[in-house]
């Protein structure tokens, strides 16, 4: 018995991590030597472990981008997988420095929960997937009147579904399940015609179906689910760093700076590129943020620009093959827009 008590006490002292709570998050992160980043417990394309156990995905790469901006090294990041219930507590209690976990930006979370969302790294929304063989000729959700719809119960998804069909004066039969696995199995077995959940999730689920090519994700999006990273309120300096790391990813894509050509681009004569990459003489953009002037170079070297991150994790370079759609840059008809870096 004695060794157990001493063991527990020993473990307790080792397990107590006392960080200097007074300094800002940037100073804390620099002192620790790594960024503690909260991710999901596994969502295809956003944060999921690969064969070696390394976290891959859009959200995970955003963590790496912030680590690269701070340290010049995208590997100085430690991931904390968090369940949906734990995520806000973990951020509030200082267990993590940054929450990058497919979290929807809402006013309640931005105000009452004490978070600051830095932007929208992925514009998601509830969509519909149908079996094209069972419902030939359907190419819009407005044609779904009378359909049996598989949906997970107790989610906002279920409420949005009811609103959408009521607003469009359509009938539907909800087929509800408690667990995601059950919904998948029921849909695959043909117990319902339509599957509804967040559109990014539909693409992941499609891969696990018996014959994915028979299934089509309809273009309609019936709810707004802007997913973005969040930080704690009350530390503007850190908030700015994370926010501008996101804008830097977008700006790099806009200017055609990629992981492959970032070194060549440093020699570019284009004043905008020079300003972004910190090669302009007497630039203070990086140091004003509290970082080095080559912060954008570091970000792009670590993960590439936003377009590369997107295509690698969820787009054409991944098994999910999600189209850019509204996540394209504003210049290409999408919603991704960054204020100028100057």
């Amino acid at each position, binding site marked *: 018995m004695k060794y157990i008590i001493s063991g527990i006490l020993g473990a307790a002292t080792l397990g107590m991590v006392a960080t200097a709570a007074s300094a800002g998050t940037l100073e804390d992160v620099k002192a620790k030597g790594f960024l503690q980043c909260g991710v999901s417990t*596994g969502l295809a394309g956003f944060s999921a472990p690969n064969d070696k156990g390394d976290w891959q995905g859009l959200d995970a790469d955003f963590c790496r981008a912030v680590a690269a901006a701070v340290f010049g090294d995208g590997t100085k990041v430690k991931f904390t997988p*968090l369940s949906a219930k734990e995520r806000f507590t973990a951020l509030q*209690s200082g267990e993590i420095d940054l929450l990058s976990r497919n979290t929807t930006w809402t006013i309640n979370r931005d105000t009452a929960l004490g978070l600051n969302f830095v932007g929208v790294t992925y514009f998601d929304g509830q969509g519909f997937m149908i079996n094209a063989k069972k419902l030939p000729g359907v190419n819009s959700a407005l044609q779904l009147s009378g359909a049996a719809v598989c949906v997970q119960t107790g989610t906002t998804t279920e409420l949005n579904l009811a609103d959408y069909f009521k607003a469009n004066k359509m009938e539907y039969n909800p087929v509800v399940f408690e667990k995601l696995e059950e919904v998948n199995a029921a849909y695959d077995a043909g117990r319902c015609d339509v599957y509804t959940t967040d559109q990014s999730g539909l693409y992941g689920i499609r*891969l696990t179906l018996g014959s994915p090519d028979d299934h089509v994700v309809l273009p309609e999006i019936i709810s707004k689910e802007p997913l973005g990273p969040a930080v704690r309120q009350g530390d503007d300096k850190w908030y700015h760093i994370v926010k501008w790391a996101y804008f830097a990813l977008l700006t790099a894509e806009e200017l055609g700076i990629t992981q492959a050509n970032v070194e060549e681009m440093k020699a570019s004569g284009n004043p905008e590129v020079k300003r972004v990459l910190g090669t302009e003489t007497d630039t203070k953009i990086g140091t004003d943020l509290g970082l080095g002037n080559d912060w954008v170079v570091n970000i792009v070297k670590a993960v590439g620009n936003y377009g590369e991150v997107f295509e690698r994790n969820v787009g054409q370079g991944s098994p999910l093959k999600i189209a850019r759609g509204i996540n394209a840059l504003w210049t290409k008809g999408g919603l991704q827009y960054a204020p100028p870096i100057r």
Partner: protein
Amino acid sequence: MSQNDLHYVRSEMALPQPAPLRERGPLAWVRKNLFANPFDSVLTIIGMLVVAMIVPPLFNWAFVNAQWTGTDRTFCATVAQGGIQPDGWSGACWAFVHAKFGQFMFGRYPIEERWRVILVAIMFVALLVPLLIPRVPRKGLNALLFFVVFPIVAFTLLIGGVFGLPHVETPLWGGLLVTLTLSFVGIVVSLPLGIILALGRRSKMPVVKMLSVIFIETIRGVPLITVLFMASVMLPLFLPAGVSFDKFLRALIGVSLFASAYMAEVVRGGLQAIPKGQYEGADSLGLGYWQKMRLVVLPQALKLVIPGIVNTFIGMFKDTSLVYIISMFDLLGVVRQNFSDPAWASPQTPSSGLVFAALVFWMFCFGMSRYSIYMEHRLDTGHKR
């Protein structure tokens, strides 16, 4: 009249005859065990039909059609699903289990440091096996090594940070490592703590008795998930900002306390089964309380409740999966987490992973169960029925 005149009396033993044909051989066995009466026959036929319906497809799925090697989902998906298998193929994707095996065993423990876990596992087996075999001598030394030296060495090796070993934080632990660590600590802590609580509950000292009752009833009154959830979500909010306990440690304490409360009730059942005469006999010998318990009551009581104790152990072993709710990944958690890897997403991946997890859990639980039966038979002195 001499005996020899009685011709109908045998003078030597009749040679043993073989049993009649309908009482021996496989046919008789089948008749006796499977088709003894019409009801049995119907049950047998139904049973055989069920077996015939389930076993061949399962065998085909798990072995004949299974994909054993591969590097990504294309090996486990049909052409229509974007893979290489013919359409209509259905087989286990053991390639997924193979590719993720390291994670299933160690979680995200750094690959170059995994030898430390393997070393701990070897020490664990090397100390546990002689402890379990009654013939092997020096049980005292063995137990000392296993229950005192081993946890300290294992703790040092796994956590690191000393003797030039790099520090490995517990969030990186996972898979079977977490399952076994949680259950080992739970078992080692809960048995002595449970015995003490059970004695406390039967104590005549009101304060000790009340504290034991409060502890046991509080812990038994809430689900394990609540205990884990409190430890994970509520505790950090009560602590001063910037101070946090290791989450794994919180889970360890939660699981151990939970198991102790159940163990206490199992042991109490054993204590109540001991006749009053045993207590009085010990008293009349002039034994003190602890001597009485150690020499007379507990050896009999614990022997009686071996099935209950092992039941609690097995239950706890499986309950460790609940740490999934606080984002720690035991074997089942890691398996499920890896379903989300888009490189392996296919219709066969989840079933293959779950079958593998079930097999591993079954191996451990079945092992514990068989050993407990063996110990029951060995210790069964005077209660044989």
